């Protein structure tokens, strides 16, 4: 079994707000991130797939295909977007880094056939990242 990781970057804005909280609770729980005008990050998406190395091609996965899937399913939807307003998942869920990692997994998983999705890692900043390994 070999693990292969591909990186991509995207930039997006978001803010944290839960309709289940009062304005005071939103402000207390989310702090500066609750500003409704939003703020932005340069995100890094790392997608790790695993599989056996194909004896003929020497590939775990065709990297070009993986790149295309990452772009089509995740970057085209999230790059240079206001996540709360433009990405369907975040009309009902808070666009935290946790939920972005889960959304990326759910978008990628059904599209990957050749190799198995192992991990999605999303960096919000170089000092903060989330790993999602699928539902356990």
């Amino acid at each position, binding site marked *: 079994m070999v693990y292969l990781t591909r990186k991509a970057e995207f930039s997006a804005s978001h803010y944290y707000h*839960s309709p289940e909280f009062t304005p005071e609770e939103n402000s207390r729980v989310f702090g500066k991130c609750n500003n409704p005008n939003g703020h932005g990050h340069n995100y890094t998406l790392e997608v790790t797939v695993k599989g056996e190395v194909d004896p003929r091609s020497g590939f775990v996965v065709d990297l070009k295909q993986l790149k295309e899937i990452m772009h089509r399913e995740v970057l085209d939807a999230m790059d240079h977007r206001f996540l709360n307003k433009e990405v369907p998942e975040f009309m009902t869920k808070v*666009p*935290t880094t946790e939920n972005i990692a889960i959304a990326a997994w759910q978008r990628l998983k059904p599209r990957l056939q050749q190799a198995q999705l192992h991990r999605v890692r999303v960096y919000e900043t170089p000092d*903060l990242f989330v790993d999602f390994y699928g539902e356990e």
Partner: protein
Amino acid sequence: MKAHLTRRYRFSASHRLHSPEMSAEENLATYGKCNNPHGHGHNYALEVTVSGPVDATTGMVCNLVDLDDCVKREVLSRYHLENLNTRKEFDVTVPTTENLCIEIFEILQRSFPYAHLERVRLEETMMNSFEYTGKNAARN
């Protein structure tokens, strides 16, 4: 749904690697330059990984403010700009980065109640790092 969240921190400290159980020659042979009696320092980078279900309302594993507060209070304020050898936990234990990594894991495990502590990873320099996942951890 369970996710792992990792936060990175930095602190600087000095240490000297010297074991009272070894002779002066053995210490020098074992620790080399790190045995210099005057000590030396590093800029450490600390990665703390916690895990748990993503809360359906907040979208969070835990509130980062709570994690930052805990790490700053329990770890960074204890070690940043300090000489590790002067700390009581390193009275007998040699303050190698291995032992510092284990100590930080145990401190955080005692003091952070809001998510499961998965891993502490400590970089001593850009070229070496150490990880500890607890006494009974089965590696992924």
